[in-house]
């Protein structure tokens, strides 16, 4: 049974036997097994194909042309365990589209995958990035089952892989991405002092990920590969699809080898 602890963060099982579900530490979904060659959608607009889900760009959408029950399937064939599927730039919430996540490890005698549920059916509350987390396990493939009602599904990015769970929790002073909006606007006034109105020229979401007292082994094994690759990051209770807004600032913090780092990010929250 899934545990929904935020609008769009869905946890199913502990990460490992004996662990309690933990959504307190920041979750970073940067490892991604999705490629153009292993993702497909049952239905697609030729001008907005399912292949668009395999690149990180959020303006290139996959658009379904069907209202039937349908699947977005990733046949990644990885041996290493995976524990999350992320979807950004979707309309599953506003479109009242039911979502279910399935995986498979074996096929029947005809070669048909034997799908089993990873995350049960739920309907996202809104269109903020969706992070579906499940117990780490080896899967040949995963598929997102979508059950539309009146709106055809669309999405921009799908990530599948193992999560990075940061060692430390969020500190006081952290600005959640959904509320970290910055605005560039102009206010106009005439020669005679009349108010001529105001115009927002641009707006974006920008925040920072900061961690202190990070064990040096953890940093080198888990954080450094992320720093080199890029980012799709997610916070408990506030999920965002982000990208770096600069270099990660890393330094040794304590005499015992503890490290600290900070990364400014920009992202989309819907």
């Amino acid at each position: 049974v899934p545990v929904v602890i935020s609008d769009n963060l869905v946890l199913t099982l502990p990460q490992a036997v004996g662990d309690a579900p933990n959504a307190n530490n920041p979750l970073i979904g940067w490892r991604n097994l999705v490629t153009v060659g292993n993702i497909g959608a049952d239905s697609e607009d030729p001008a907005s194909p399912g292949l668009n889900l395999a690149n990180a760009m959020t303006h290139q959408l996959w658009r379904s042309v069907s209202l039937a029950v349908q699947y977005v399937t990733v046949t990644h064939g990885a041996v290493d365990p995976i524990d999350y599927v992320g979807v950004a730039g979707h309309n599953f919430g506003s479109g009242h589209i039911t979502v279910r996540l399935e995986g498979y490890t074996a096929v029947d005698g005809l070669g048909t995958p034997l799908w089993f549920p990873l995350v049960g059916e739920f309907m996202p509350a809104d269109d903020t990035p969706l992070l579906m987390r499940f117990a780490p396990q080896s899967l040949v493939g995963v598929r997102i089952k979508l059950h539309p009602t009146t709106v055809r599904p669309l999405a921009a990015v799908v990530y599948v892989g193992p999560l990075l769970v940061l060692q430390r929790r969020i500190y006081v002073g952290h600005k959640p991405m959904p509320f970290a909006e910055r605005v560039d606007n102009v206010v106009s006034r005439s020669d005679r002092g009349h108010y001529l109105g105001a115009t927002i020229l641009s707006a974006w979401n920008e925040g920072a990920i900061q961690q202190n007292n990070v064990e040096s082994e953890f940093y080198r094994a888990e954080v450094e590969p992320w720093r080199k690759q890029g980012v799709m990051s997610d916070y408990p209770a506030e999920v965002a699809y982000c990208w770096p807004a600069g270099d990660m600032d890393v330094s040794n913090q304590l005499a015992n080898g503890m490290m600290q780092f900070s990364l400014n990010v920009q992202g989309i929250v819907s």
Partner: protein
Amino acid sequence: VSEAQALTFMEMDLDLYRVTRFEDVQNAKPVRNWALQAGVTNVAAQGVLQASFPAGRGISVSRTAVGLPSMLRWFYPPPGSPTIRDVSAVALLRYTTAAPVGSIAGGIVLRGLQGPSPTLTGYACDANGTHVRLWEFSSGVGDLLAEVEFAVAQNEDVWMRFDTANISGGVTLRAKVWRGAISDEPAEFLVSFDDTTAFEGSGWVGLVVPGSPGPTVEARCGYFRFRSLFGSTVETHRHTMAANYVPIRDIPATPDLVSVALNPGGISLGSDLGKRSQLTVTMQDHPGSDFGEGVGIGSHWAKFRARGLFRRGQALSLVHGTLGLSLAEMERRHCVLESFSGPSRDRSFTIVAQDPLKLADNDRAQAPRISNGVLGSNIDAAAVSVTLAPEGIGDAEYPPAGFGNIGGQEIVAFERVGDVLTLDRGRFGTTPTDHTAGDRFQLCLNIPASTVATIINQLLIDYAGVDANYIPLADWNLECATYLPQLYSRLIPDPTGVNKLISELIEQAGLMMWPDDIAQLIRLQVLRPIPTTAFEYNDSNTLAGTIQPQEQPSTRITQIWTYYGVRNPLHGPTVPHGRRFRQ
């Protein structure tokens, strides 16, 4: 106080361009966006792994038994949309089995159409192992149009380019095949054919299935791309300034627009065509994909440049609006592409567009056009006939009758049959004189008594190539009939810049012209008092600090010289001894 959320879009109409490396193909599975159009029995089209192809995979098309002619249509155009006519396609092909003698091997099909099954029409190019061949399919039957020897071995990868374009009276076809990399493409085409008898329409693009009507054969394709030529089929590319409220789902756009600078044009009252408005658009380069493919191969604007999609004069629109408006409700300014630069080291890419009157610039448009005919022999002052050279130039460039300028010395009236001219010497105040073989015979532009609206319309459309839709001729005629019921005539003996000619008219007739980039029209108005109903700009409705008066003493007129009554058009309109004079 609510704030409007600004939206800015830039749209360009560019030649249609599609490319696939079959990156998502799975072995022995159907291939996305490829559809068999006819003869679907005994034919297979499916994914195939082929290590030598760019993505290690491709599409296999094969005939499993005797069957009807078959073609595979790629996904453009989707059902119901316009088809494509002038087009160039490139494919990487591999023939794994030899085509039976007399049948078609796999290759490219252009302008494909399907009537009632199995009726097929279209043009195809194939390589059957010994020859590269051009075919025309009509009512399902393939006719060989042309062929040239070119050996292609079984299981050899070869590149093929196949073009079709409409020409006067028919369709020109041309093709080439080469080995190695796509960049090894030779400059010369191997085989060409001008088809003046049949299919001049448009259709879809794809592959022809080999072996029709023969037995089992297979061809593979590991790369396929096509583009329309000369803007015959365009699609709109839309870009937007990035903001988290841009409704990209409803108005698809690439959010890479960094800045837009619109320098408004200047209207020059009664003087000339004024200053051209200029739109400078700067984009940020980024990874680019072709419908999901090729993300790791080149960036978006680098691809734009490499693909030669920029064509001077194509339409560009700047769209301003606020959130909540539909695209149709937003303000749209129309320009034409002028130049581009980038991607630069900072990954920026800049496009410059201008108003359509730029097409009338003196270095781009001249009236009359240069004539290439010369006198074929010496003539004296009394000669009344001469033959033009080179042979055939008469029918190619000259009307049956008109006025000509011989070597810039004499204006003559002529009547023409073939290359032979019958001359009426010494017209328009010029004196008959001797001319030598090789003197240029320049066709003059004779403008009979006409309104300025008629003259400017002719100059812009016929000589500057301005789209007739830009010119509201009925409005111009009404303006002239109301405020300038005067006719003008002129003989223009040599190619002269259209901007210069129109500017002379503007000065002589007291006009002003300007491009209305929102209405997408070129306006013409006779100089007259400003109506009392005109909109008033004052210090209540203008932005603080934006109005700056400036004195222009250099434009004050203290004395007027008038030249009139042209004595000899060869001396030019501004040469005093060519005209009468009054101060």
